[in-house]
């Protein structure tokens, strides 16, 4: 029998992951104009990976045998065509937050107290390379993914309500 809470757990993992993603993007946007004397802020990117929940929850022992009547067969979803039963439905987790390797930008601003006092970049301040359009697209995508997780959660909740209603009838 499928664990009724599986869809809840998966959707919740997605919501947590997208919230972390939004935090990373917000940090990038907040630091878009941050200057520094040394190495500037580097934009960061959240990287996700599938996360297995408990084995009992990720397998899908759907159905079973029906006794009686003309419907006496064994019913099972063929999740195992390529041995993927355990991977049929997985949550997600934040695997890493990686720094963008893009080089820093330098802006000539000798009056800035953070401008380099010597060297090849004398009089320049280091600024991070932040593409605000790309960050905004990432933010919208993360928001949409969060919406999809919420929709999955609400769908699972409605199924619980329907199932409870059957029990009461």
């Amino acid at each position: 029998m499928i664990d009724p809470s599986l869809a809840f757990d998966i959707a919740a993992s997605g919501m947590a992951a997208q919230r972390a993603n939004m935090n990373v993007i917000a940090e990038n946007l907040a630091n878009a104009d941050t200057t520094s004397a040394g190495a500037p802020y580097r934009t960061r990117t959240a990287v996700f990976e599938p996360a297995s929940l408990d084995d009992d929850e990720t397998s899908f022992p759907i159905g079973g045998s029906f006794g009686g009547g003309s419907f006496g067969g064994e019913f099972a979803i063929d999740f195992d065509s390529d041995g993927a039963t355990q991977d049929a439905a997985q949550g997600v987790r934040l695997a890493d937050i990686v720094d963008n390797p893009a080089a820093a930008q330098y802006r000539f601003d000798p009056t800035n107290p953070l401008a380099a006092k010597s060297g090849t970049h004398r009089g320049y301040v280091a600024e991070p390379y932040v593409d605000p359009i790309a960050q905004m697209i990432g933010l919208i995508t993360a928001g949409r993914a969060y919406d999809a997780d919420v929709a999955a959660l609400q769908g699972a909740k409605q199924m619980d309500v329907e199932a409870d209603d059957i029990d009461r009838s």
Partner: protein
Amino acid sequence: MSEFGFAAVEEGLRIGRARAAVLAADAANALTPGFAAQDVVTSPSGDAASPFSATLREVSMHGSASVLEYSMGATAKNGVSYRALADQERAMVREFKTVAEEARR
């Protein structure tokens, strides 16, 4: 006959539950690099003993936005199907109770 009806509807409800989890995983992993979206596909098997065939299939999608939209749409559709099956189950339970009461009189 009623056993067949109950069993078929309840199996449909179970498949709906499983599909909800698969679609939730699609939504959760839409931004995961290398993730391939999946869905549960049901079809008549042509076998009287086991009339349904439900299979987990990879869904061909291009881009995370497509996976998200597919997941949301399929989740909504799955919810409607589940509700219809639940209505059918309730109707059959009511009919079953009515027949049982009639038989007692």
